[in-house]
């Protein structure tokens, strides 16, 4: 067990956990931030996507000991009032079915648009390849990303 000082969504937290603990479980079990989802535990589904220093990361395989002072952003901190252009586009397209993967989809898409504000269809498909939606809402996810991209 060790103490870790974390900057999550602009707030400072201190947690005492085993250094190998993935940040996913720190968020969910210790900080009760449940928006970041567990889907596979091996970085294959993207449900647990967060931003570490602005880069999309799979939180299920990222040990807390490797976070350091880099700021962490989760879905809860993506925007103040759930009004990030992607969140608004998601609502406009009424994307979710079960909804479980969607916070990871949105976080991954947000990192994409930060790096590439006007992605092509192929670039969207390539960037979103690591995010599974078992309900199959891909056509709407893509449309929502394009809408958010156009609104910027």
């Amino acid at each position: 067990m060790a103490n870790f000082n974390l900057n999550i969504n602009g707030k400072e937290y201190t947690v005492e956990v085993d250094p190998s603990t993935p940040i996913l479980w720190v968020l969910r079990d210790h900080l009760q931030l449940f928006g970041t989802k567990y889907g596979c535990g091996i970085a294959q589904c993207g449900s647990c996507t967060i931003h570490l220093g602005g880069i999309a990361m799979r939180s299920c395989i990222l040990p807390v000991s490797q976070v350091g002072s880099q700021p962490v952003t989760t879905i809860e901190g993506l925007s103040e009032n759930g009004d990030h252009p992607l969140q608004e586009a998601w609502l406009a397209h009424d994307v979710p079915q079960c909804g479980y993967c969607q916070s990871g989809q949105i976080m991954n898409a947000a990192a994409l648009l930060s790096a590439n504000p006007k992605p092509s269809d192929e670039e969207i498909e390539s960037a979103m390849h690591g995010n599974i939606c078992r309900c199959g809402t891909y056509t709407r996810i893509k449309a929502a990303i394009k809408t958010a991209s156009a609104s910027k």
Partner: protein
Amino acid sequence: MSIIKTAVGRRSFLKSTTLTGGGMMLGFSWLASCQSKSEEEIMAMPKEWFEINSYLKIGDNGVVTIYTPNPEFGQNVRTSMPMLIAEELDVDWKRVIVEQAPYHPENFGFQFTGGSRGIMSRWEPLRMAGASARHMLREAAAQLWQVPVDEITTDGGLLHHVATGKTAGYGEFASAAANIPVPEEVKLKDVKDFKIIGKSQKNVDGKAIVKGDPLFGFDYHKEGMLIAMIEHPPAFGMTLKSIDDSAAKAMPGIRDVIAIKSYQDDFEKGGFDANAFPEIVAIVGNSTWEVMQAKKQLRIEWKEIESHTETINGFRGKETKNIPAGLESSADHRAQMQEVAGRHGKIVRKDGDPETAFRHAAKIIERSYSAPFLAHNSMEPLNAFAHVDGDKVHIAAAIQIPSLIIPAIASGLGIPPENIEMEIPRMGGGFGRKAYAHYVVEAALISQRVNAPVKLVYTREDDMTNGIYRPTYHATYRAALDENNNMIAFHVKAGGIPESPLFANRFPAGAIQNYLAEEWSIDSNISIGAFRAPRSNFMAGAEQSFLDEVAEAAGKDPIQFRLDMLKQAQENPVGERNDYDAERYAGVLELVREKSAWGQNQANVHRGVSAYFCHNTYAAHVLDLIMEAGKPVVQNVCCAIDCGIVVNPDAAINMTEGAITDGIGNAFYGELTFKDGVPEKKNFDKYRIIRMAEAPKNIDVHFVQNEINPTGMGEPPFPPIFGAIANAMYKATGERQYHQPFLGSKEVLG
């Protein structure tokens, strides 16, 4: 206008003691906190609520809370069911708050998610709940205003009496309405008068989902709760022998390791108590990561099971199943199916004289199809919260059919069913898997043993390898053509491990003079159950691929070929038990033919058509495929659906898009194989799920417009897409697809 007696389910309209005005039901606070409300909405919260019936309460300011009865797993019933109530209540949809009802069958009837029967079964009862509340409001206004109730009209949450010019909001009469007797009968609106039904309404949970609010079972949290995981046998055909828990118990944060026996010896299993691993090991600790690590330190000896029988008392009455001993492998399954498929099956239906017709055929086409076991792989792995506190039980579980797991929980705990309370948080997918809720029993038993609130979570590997899988299936079709290429006989022989997928009375039964349907099955110890459109999800693809091939052999257009058969079934049906309406079936084919501009072929675009009827809804697809460097790319799917009245059109389109994408994914890649009883895929690195680049580039959904009572949307568009993709792949490559998965790990065809 239809007048409906409220006697059916009227009890649920009676004001209940558990839902008193202003009060919240036990356990509601957590779900209520998940509601995303804008500041304006919070500002507009009423000072006092008045319960009109168990489904709704009205605030003194006219805001309406609707308790939605059925579990939500992505089919959007949390929006569409309240729409039914709001329509007949005649209230402004913007002033409706939706809350999830807890499990409470006296108040909320049969609360379930499955069989695409949610909206169909709730169509009248929920509208009656709204209509009876509206009547009570009008009655209250009539009494105060001293005018005949028939002269009181409503409009968007307002009561009017035109002659005297009086107008009031529902909120002003909510208190008085709560004391009006529930009417004996109510009038329901004509379809043409609908203001909410038939208009696309956004998902009521959309905002909460995109903000990451804790909606799901996996997100359930209670102060002081422990985390539990289970270790089940590594192979089907095995069970617990002994545990060495010393290393695991010594790991940090671990509270206990216990053996769990999920069913008492005298417990009579119901149809949804399927569970291959009733004796397992549970490990309980403070946090998920600690339990995950300690789980790896469990040293467990497993042993092979003995052959036995299991009696299930389900919807179809009592059935006894043979559970063989042994460690099964997919290679053996395939050989067994080949062998049994070559013998006579059990004849389920026979029309005319198929043997003679086949003997006199000018041409016989015979083809066999197969498909593997499939895992459901809901994105949210199985989980359940349970707190057994003395003889009181509190459950919060992502579960499709709460009522059907109550007997097993009660029996396992030795606590009466009436002491079990259950919340129904949102499910992160289910696809049938979460109808088999052994994990809820496990959570309850663990909580009782450790005497603490417990959340049981399955890892992805636990979820994938402790499946209630879609069975592996096999079907052989034969068609006889005469010298004029008329189909004169049709024969289907279908089976599987461990169940047959056959529907003997579905199309093309009824459309052919000489028809034979046989089935068979092979026992197995691998647990199986419902998977999005059970059995149909295989039969549709096989049958629709076969009909495509027969149409081609007969030199006929594949849509016209099907329409000609349906015409026969409509005008001169063969047999009396044909489970479809040939006119509606033809209707979706005609609509998809028109909307897809069938017959106008584009260069390098390969089209496949398929249609199917299951779960009370008709669906037809035309799929356009192009080949890019040997890879099949689905450019477009044009779909026609007849589900009667479409309650929430955009949500129904979303369901259809999802079913099409899911179906293409399973047709291309879906497969779970076994080696010596061990599932050979445990996570998404090996189990391939369709991803964005592989999904259709466009999906175009059309509904048949009619005023027939609505039927289901979760399943029906799924089965036929398997046939559409197979038929398009044939056009693209010249090779027919007989065995799923069509691509598997192959990236390119040919």
